[in-house]
């Protein structure tokens, strides 16, 4: 990654509430502000009222807005573009959509998206139905009707009902940014001290909004890395899960394989299924399975039959796939397993981000059962690493785990668009019918890869399965020495993948005092912090891993060049422990966070500075 980047952190988030003058947006915005202030955030706000006192309802002129910029670290201005826009009607959308970051989240009250209102707002057609908002994460909610429904048992007038719908929007935003409700509750109690019914109603709607966001598992999709210095080229905005889906399709086309995608919905991975399902025109076979096991097993069957078998899930679903993945290891078939991580253990925190499935994908199978593990590190490079997962899986005839997380998957960033031609060749180790004396477990002596002999091909008829295989013939074998041989060769085959992946690179100082080590979705924050500090003259470098098993060949070399190594992860220390296994000779420090949130630059800087001083 050559481009210069800056981080837009979650703790420097910009939210814009916009609606008609009567929609109570000022109040909503200031409630969010006050609550955030109580949490100790620094902030800057920018309310903008309509020019006229009584602007015509539903027009752009009548839109009232409140922008708030909050941050853990000092915030100097109300923010340029919003991460989240709440648009209570089409006019509010029209007035503010240009000021939403590409990839940002837009919450709209669909109840107000009527033809009449489009007209008033100056839209030609329904902006939710055309391509206009393609690059935003749009959450369509019937705020008005849900508010009404919520208050149907409370005896207040219709106007009060309508007025309280801003609380629904506020509740949703509170959920997305994990804000407590007590400040606003107190506010409501004071404001409506004499109208207890209104207190009850407003609170009820506030909670309804919060719970609604929880129920529909609404995620804040702001992402960290915004390229500042662009290379020239054509750009688009892209979210991690979409980029990932496209990477898979691209790899299938390039390798001339049918893409088979078997999945069972789960947050935050479902969007990949939704996205690939839109692209059947390339011949992709999409299967929404009855469960995760069927999803994995079907992908293995498809691979056996010559397709590119892919399966996706998040932690709990990946746990269920372990046995099937073992079968793919034993049968040495391609299989791409996508793990969009979320907070664990168990059901955990489905909508929060975490990196705590690393050891599971490395070791969560019975027996000696090695698999390739790679991780994307930005939303856009989900495209590249999804492609890479397919390439490695096919070229090495073995399962590959592709690791992402809720933060990457849902986040978006500008992407310099690649073309099919930019992507590396995928060498498919197909056996063909002219094969002489075909043996299913004969291997390429260099890569140790067996050939892919696809059903339907004459001359290659053979049978495979989960029992230990005899070397070369692939027949069932209980022979002790054969078992040891095969166990070792399966391990060796995976370590040889190191010859087929790029070396590790370092950002910032190439040697010196402190090497920051990270992997996966933390790249944006680590990169920003390290390069900023390096620019300030600190002896600090960043080695960020996309390839985890096997590790890049030059890992030792790089580790040797630094006095201290600090491994930063959103878990209790899984990669650092893996490094202790694989590279025991180095001493590792670790910095961990398990809050369902990404790192913040501020906390990282703190850590790094501390360590640099201590030397």
């Amino acid at each position, binding site marked *: 990654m050559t481009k210069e980047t800056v981080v837009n952190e979650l703790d420097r988030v910009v939210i814009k509430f916009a609606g008609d003058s009567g929609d109570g947006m000022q109040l909503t915005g200031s409630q969010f502000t006050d609550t955030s202030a109580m949490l100790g955030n620094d902030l800057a706000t920018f309310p903008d009222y309509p020019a006229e006192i009584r602007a015509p309802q539903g027009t752009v002129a009548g839109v009232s807005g409140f922008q708030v910029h909050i941050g853990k670290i000092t915030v100097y201005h109300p923010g340029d573009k919003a991460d989240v826009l709440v648009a209570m009607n089409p006019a509010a959308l029209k007035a503010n959509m240009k000021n939403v970051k*590409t990839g940002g989240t837009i919450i709209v009250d669909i109840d107000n998206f009527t033809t009449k209102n489009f007209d008033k707002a100056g839209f030609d057609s329904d902006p939710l139905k055309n*391509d206009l908002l*393609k690059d935003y994460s749009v959450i369509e909610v019937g705020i008005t009707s849900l508010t009404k429904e919520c208050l149907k048992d409370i005896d207040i007038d219709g106007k009060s009902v309508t007025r309280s719908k801003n609380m629904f929007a506020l509740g949703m935003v509170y959920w997305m940014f994990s804000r407590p409700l007590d400040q606003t509750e107190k506010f409501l109690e004071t404001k409506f001290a004499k109208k207890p019914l209104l207190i009850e109603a407003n609170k009820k709607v506030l909670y309804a909004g919060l719970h609604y966001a929880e129920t529909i598992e609404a995620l804040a999709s702001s992402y960290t890395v915004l390229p500042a210095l*662009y290379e*020239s*080229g*054509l*750009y*688009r905005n892209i979210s991690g899960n979409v980029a990932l889906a*496209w990477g898979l*399709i691209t790899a299938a086309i390039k390798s001339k394989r049918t893409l*088979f995608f*078997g999945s069972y919905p789960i947050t935050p991975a479902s969007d990949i299924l939704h996205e690939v399902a839109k*692209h*059947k*025109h*390339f*011949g*992709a*076979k999409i*299967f929404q399975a*009855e*469960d995760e*096991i*069927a*999803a994995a*097993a*079907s*992908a*293995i*069957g*498809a*691979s*056996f*039959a*010559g*397709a590119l*078998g892919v399966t996706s899930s998040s932690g709990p679903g990946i746990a269920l796939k372990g046995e*099937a993945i*073992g*079968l793919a290891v034993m*049968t040495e078939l391609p299989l791409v397993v996508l793990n969009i991580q979320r907070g664990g253990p168990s059901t955990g925190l489905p909508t929060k981000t975490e990196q705590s499935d690393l050891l599971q994908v490395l070791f969560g199978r019975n027996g000696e059962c090695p698999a390739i593990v790679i991780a994307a590190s930005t939303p856009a490079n989900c495209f590249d690493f999804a492609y890479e997962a397919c390439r490695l899986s096919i070229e090495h005839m073995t399962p590959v785990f592709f690791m992402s997380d809720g933060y990457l998957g849902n986040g978006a960033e500008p992407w*310099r*668009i690649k*073309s*099919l031609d930019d992507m590396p060749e995928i060498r498919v180790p197909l056996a063909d019918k002219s094969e002489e004396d075909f043996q299913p477990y004969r291997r390429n002596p260099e890569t140790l890869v067996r050939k892919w002999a696809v*059903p*339907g*091909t*004459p001359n*290659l*008829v*053979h*049978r*495979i*399965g*989960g*029992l230990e295989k005899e070397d070369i013939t692939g*027949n*069932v074998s209980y022979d002790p020495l054969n078992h040891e041989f095969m166990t070792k060769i399966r391990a060796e085959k995976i370590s040889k993948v190191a010859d087929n992946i790029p070396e590790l690179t370092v950002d910032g100082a190439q040697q010196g005092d402190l090497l920051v080590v990270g992997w996966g979705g933390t790249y944006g924050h680590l990169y920003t912090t390290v390069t900023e500090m390096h620019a300030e003259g600190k002896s600090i470098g960043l080695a960020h891993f996309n390839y985890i098993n096997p590790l890049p060949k030059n890992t030792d070399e790089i580790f040797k060049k630094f006095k201290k190594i600090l491994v930063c992860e959103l878990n209790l220390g899984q990669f650092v422990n893996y490094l202790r296994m694989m590279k025991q000779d180095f001493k590792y420090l670790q910095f961990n966070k398990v809050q369902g949130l990404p790192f913040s630059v501020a906390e990282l800087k703190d850590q790094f500075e501390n360590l640099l001083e201590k030397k």
Partner: protein
Amino acid sequence: MAVENVKAFKKEDFSSDQMVRWCPGCGDYAILRAMQVALAQLDRDPEDYVFVSGIGCSSRFPYYMNTYGFHSIHGRAPALALGVKLANPDLRVWIITGDGDGLSIGGNHFIHAMRRNLDVNVILFNNEIYGLTKGQYSPTSKLGIVTKSSPQGSIEVPFSPAELALGAKCNYFARVADNNPKYMASIFVEAEKFRGTSLIEILQNCPIFNDKIHEPIVGRDHKDDTMIILEHGKPMVFGKERKKGIRLNGLKLEVVTIGENGITEEDLLVHDAHETDPTLHTMLARMTVPEFPVAIGVIRQVKGSTFNDRVDDQIAQSKAISSFKTMDDVLRGGVTWEVA
């Protein structure tokens, strides 16, 4: 039925070089032979077949077929086979499973396979026991059976594979006994020609752990009276002297004797395997000894669109209407901007 075999295959063409490992006397041998005989009657080459199995004695089957084969993991064969078939719908896919593999751990994939109607064949080896793990009761074992894991007798009400499958929207169900390989082969041939999921339950004997469990049905000396072979369009006659028949009485089936109480063949049910309403098929499949003969043959055979066709239709439709012709169209579609 008209069996074309333009290629003049022999049974041996479908027999692999692997030594067959079942216990002497195991019912699985007959099924294997019948399958080889059946495929030899058809005109597809060995490489066009894929046999997919789970785990169990029965699931060893693919090793012995000279076709592509996948001995997968316990219970998951239907899911794996779905991937095979969707990846390449030209392949002829057979799923081999047991009462444990298919109905215990694999029950979920089994029922979902039934409703989807993928164009595959499912052979359920029902020996009412877990053979490979040395004799625990299975989901089809009779209530009260004493096994390794039920020293005081099993307390589980068994499934009827037919009822379960029909309740799950199965379109094709046949039942055969392992002691009539020729008939079995003919059913395999029929199933292979059916487009959709064909489920064939085989009453299979495990002489080691559950010997003669189907004897009350398939025993040589009484089988004409304890089995009825259903043929589409034919009246339901059975018995050594072919004097007995099945009649509908209200909502109940009953066994009647032709010639007694004025009963003639006219009074008997005529088998209609093609009836879409599964009510009568379920009743027939549920018949059991000693009250009734057990129904053998193709009990239900109803055409419907297959899952693989539906998948391919959507792909075709999608191709026809999509504005994206190449991947680059997708990558460059939507809102983009140029940086100089």
